């Protein structure tokens, strides 16, 4: 495991590169895209487990923090869809460089899946894209964050004025993180069901429950001829459960399945 800063020295990104831990090392690599805001915190441990599993199958892996998140430079309000897409591009270039391989795949969780799916990184020829519990509809996602934030501050009766709001009267702080107007607009504009261009032509959809939006996304990807696999698992998730919001994500079945799928695909 090799943690380091990379990218523009004025705006460095924090990443952790894991080299293959198998004698059958092949020339393929995987970039992991974290969720944003509080869901990033929930997922850190699960991503560490996933990189470890992927490395054991012989793959090169990297997980990294977007600009304005985790240990990367910038404030949380500095995020935007353009910035996150640019970070994925920088991450892919860095991973290829670090691993010395040209073949790359992407794995994204929650909003990280939406970022990975919509990133204009066709030049990298992403072989596989794994969407893990993806945020399908940005507006519904923000609505859920608002509901969780409201529940959290309501439970803590100390807050007199729990909402900071923008000029449109919309909350700018959601579940512990400041959101700029641009971030809110970018996220709310996202709808994967309207997306025609994806970052890869081979997409795997791994979800923790059979929700209507996942079924619709599956059918949408099938209609575009991009879906290579769809599996429903019973662990992890609880993304809309206020009790689970500050608990580490435990999703060993999905993690194993992703590692198996990408391990198989590398052949």
């Amino acid at each position, binding site marked *: 495991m090799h943690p380091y800063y990379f990218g523009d020295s004025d705006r460095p990104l924090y990443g952790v590169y894991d080299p293959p831990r198998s004698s059958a090392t092949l020339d393929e690599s995987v970039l992991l895209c974290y969720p944003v805001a509080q869901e990033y915190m929930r997922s850190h441990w699960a991503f*560490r487990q996933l990189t470890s599993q992927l490395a054991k199958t012989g793959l090169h892996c990297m997980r990294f923090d977007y600009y304005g998140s985790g240990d990367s430079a910038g404030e949380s309000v500095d995020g935007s869809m353009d910035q996150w897409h640019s970070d994925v591009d920088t991450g892919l270039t860095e991973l290829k460089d670090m691993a010395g391989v040209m073949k790359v795949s992407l794995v994204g969780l929650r909003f990280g899946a939406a970022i990975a799916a919509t990133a204009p990184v066709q030049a990298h020829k992403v072989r596989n894209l794994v969407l893990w519990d993806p945020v399908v509809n940005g507006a519904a996602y923000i609505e859920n964050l608002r509901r969780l934030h409201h529940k959290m501050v309501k439970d803590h009766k100390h807050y007199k004025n729990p909402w900071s709001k923008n000029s449109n009267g919309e909350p700018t*702080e959601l579940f*512990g993180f*400041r959101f700029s107007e641009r971030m809110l607009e970018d996220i709310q504009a996202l709808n994967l069901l309207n997306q025609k261009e994806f970052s890869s032509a081979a997409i795997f959809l791994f979800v923790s429950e059979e929700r209507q939006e996942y079924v619709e996304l599956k059918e949408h990807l099938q209609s575009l001829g991009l879906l290579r696999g769809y599996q429903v698992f019973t662990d992890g998730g609880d993304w809309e459960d206020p009790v689970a919001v500050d608990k580490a994500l435990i999703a060993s079945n999905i993690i194993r399945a992703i590692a198996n799928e990408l391990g198989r695909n590398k052949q």
Partner: protein
Amino acid sequence: MKEKVVTFGEGKQLVGIISEPEQHEKIENAPGVLILHSGMHHHVGPFRLHVVTARRLAACGYPVLRFDVAGMGDSPARRDTGYDADRTIADIKSAMDELTDRKGTKRFVAMGLCTGANNAHKVAVVDDRVEGCVFLGGYAYPTWQFYARRYGPKALNPKRVMSLVLRLGRNLISKSETGKKEARTSARTSDGFHWWVLPPKEKTRKDFMALVARGVNLLFVFSGAESNRYNYTKQMEHAFPSVDFKGRLKILINKDAHHAYLMASDRDKLVSQVIGWLNECFVKQNMPEN
């Protein structure tokens, strides 16, 4: 302010990030600040609290190391069979060694939230290099005033009195089961890794005596969410009447704040408080008198 990823400790397995002041921001003989992990949160901290704190402290002249002890966050687990509490303290000592090797820092402030506060206390007691501690939601012992403030208003409300009587009744019925549960919790939590238990008051009293004698400055910050443990400023001094803190104890209560500082404005306020306290304890003493 600039940052660098470092790996240190046995086999260079521990991962941390040093935030250091630019040349023009440096304070002479500033203590290094160690930000310790809290619960299951890795070195980024809840709601990015540790990142924000480290960067602002560094911009004010203090070198800061935020890091993961073995088995947490980005630091791999050890393969030996040592006791978690001992290994955690050993890792914190390694963090001090690292900051000394890289930045020449010889004195330290240990800062932590919840589990981190527990570990800050433990390491301060055993390592003379620690000259200050910032305890966020740290140890608190009840006094009669605490109980009066907590239960007094309720005692005047008949509905709440009835509710309390019913609750006590239920607790009595389930006492045996609760006892078993507590025993299990203590066994699991005594390691100080993800969880912590309040040490016996007498042990803490002796620790405070030793720390004050050594000249260690202590900052306790309690949030409103901790009002069920600490609810007035003088509670610490009242709980330890035999300890002369010699002006080295400071207590702040952020009554509107969440335990893990959920609101960004609360985090901003907290970091300003910590900077103010650091300057008061470690900068003013360096300044020549007019």
